[in-house]
């Protein structure tokens, strides 16, 4: 236990924790997207609602959900902690510091993109998760359709997805670097898989509000 505590308390241990939670959250995104794509089905939201109902009622899923929240919290708290200790590691700032010549925009913006994703998460949970899980909303698909007919929310979600994409652009490969898997041999493969997370998945999520906004609304109305 002592050894484990020393491990997790070290700077590298904290980064490893960051990586593992980050990768877990990435896998959650895959599941989340797969479920959400049911919204594109032209059945008036029936499949999606069934899926939402299953997710809300199944005790195993509900337990996993607690785990998910715990991991999100660890990711946030641990990240904040690392951010503060990294700030302390440089007691005096440079008068001239051309970090942009040596690093990517995404890597410099991790703390900012993380904060924005957090804001998004709060809105997102308040908008959908609270009604579905706490208030007992049965017809989640209608709520989604209604939300994404509003220009404000569509733009808000698109912006959030761009920010998430930036966060994952650096974060995904960074996690594998921290876990030591980004070697000369596998570095290319990791960058390739990373495309799935920072490009394909955000686009997948973006299709839903866009589709609903431009086509989905009328289609759903016709079905009703």
């Amino acid at each position: 236990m002592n050894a484990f505590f020393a491990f997790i308390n070290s700077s590298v241990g904290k980064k490893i924790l960051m990586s593992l939670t980050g990768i877990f959250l990435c896998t959650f995104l895959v599941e989340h997207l797969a479920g959400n794509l049911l919204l594109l089905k032209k059945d008036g939201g029936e499949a999606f609602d069934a899926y939402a109902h299953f997710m809300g009622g199944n005790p195993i899923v509900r337990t996993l959900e607690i785990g998910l929240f715990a991991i999100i919290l660890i990711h946030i708290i641990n990240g904040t902690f690392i951010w503060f200790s990294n700030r302390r590691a440089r007691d005096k700032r440079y008068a001239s510091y051309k970090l942009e010549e040596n690093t990517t925009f995404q890597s410099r913006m991790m703390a900012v993109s993380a904060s924005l994703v957090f804001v998004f998460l709060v809105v997102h949970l308040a908008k959908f998760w609270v009604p579905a899980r706490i208030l007992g909303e049965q017809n989640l698909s209608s709520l989604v359709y209604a939300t994404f007919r509003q220009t404000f929310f569509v733009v808000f979600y698109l912006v959030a997805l761009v920010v998430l994409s930036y966060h994952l652009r650096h974060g995904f490969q960074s996690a594998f670097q921290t876990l030591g898997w980004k070697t000369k041999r596998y570095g290319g493969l990791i960058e390739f898989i990373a495309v799935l997370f920072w490009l394909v998945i955000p686009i997948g999520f973006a299709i839903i509000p866009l589709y609903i906004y431009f086509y989905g609304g009328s289609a759903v109305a016709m079905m009703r």
Partner: protein
Amino acid sequence: MKIHLKVWRQKDQNDGGRFVDYTASNVSPDMSFLEMLDIVNIDLVKKGETPIAFDHDCREGICGSCGMMINGRAHGPGRGIATCQLHMRSFQDGDSVVIEPWRAAAFPVLKDLMIDRTSFDRIMQAGGYTSAKTGGIPDGNAILIPKPVADEAFDAAACIGCGACVAACPNSSAMLFVSAKVSQLALLPQGQAERTTRVQRMIAQMDEEKFGACSNTYACEAECPKQISVTHIARLNREFIAAQF
């Protein structure tokens, strides 16, 4: 050439420090950056002022003594060079140059551009060695090391301990420095006996010295005078994880 300098002057560790403007005239493009500073210093001494203190020694880019932040870049513009290898032909007549010491809590400023890098030695002391005793050693060829392994170990061993990785890193992290030694000895058969304790002790010491955590921005690799690859950091992480089991 004429160069306008803005140099960090700090009397000692307790002094707050400030920027002072100087002008270096009659600078030739073939001069190294340190030779340019030498000229400024001779003028200062003649005027009865204390010259700008900076660490330097071999002036061939191998001892790792020199190092300063030049216009926001560790060791100045250019890749794969130490400050002593930077030449004035990299600047234009009339340029303004801001010169600051490396900034890190683990590298306190001693005077002007001189910093205390003994934290690096303390990290090395925590395991950056093999326990080879003097004498009683098997023949050099008794240990076979395939060329690709020897080459990769060499790439890591090329570290000159200048601290540019720390200076360039937004987190003042020393991971590239530590990884260079851990990686070198993890690759070589001679380093196997202490493989586990080495990585654990060196990282513990690195944390104790208040270096930041690596956030994989790779600014270190970009500014390393020996262009040591961040794949060594990946190996360090792997070693650290493996050490838990």
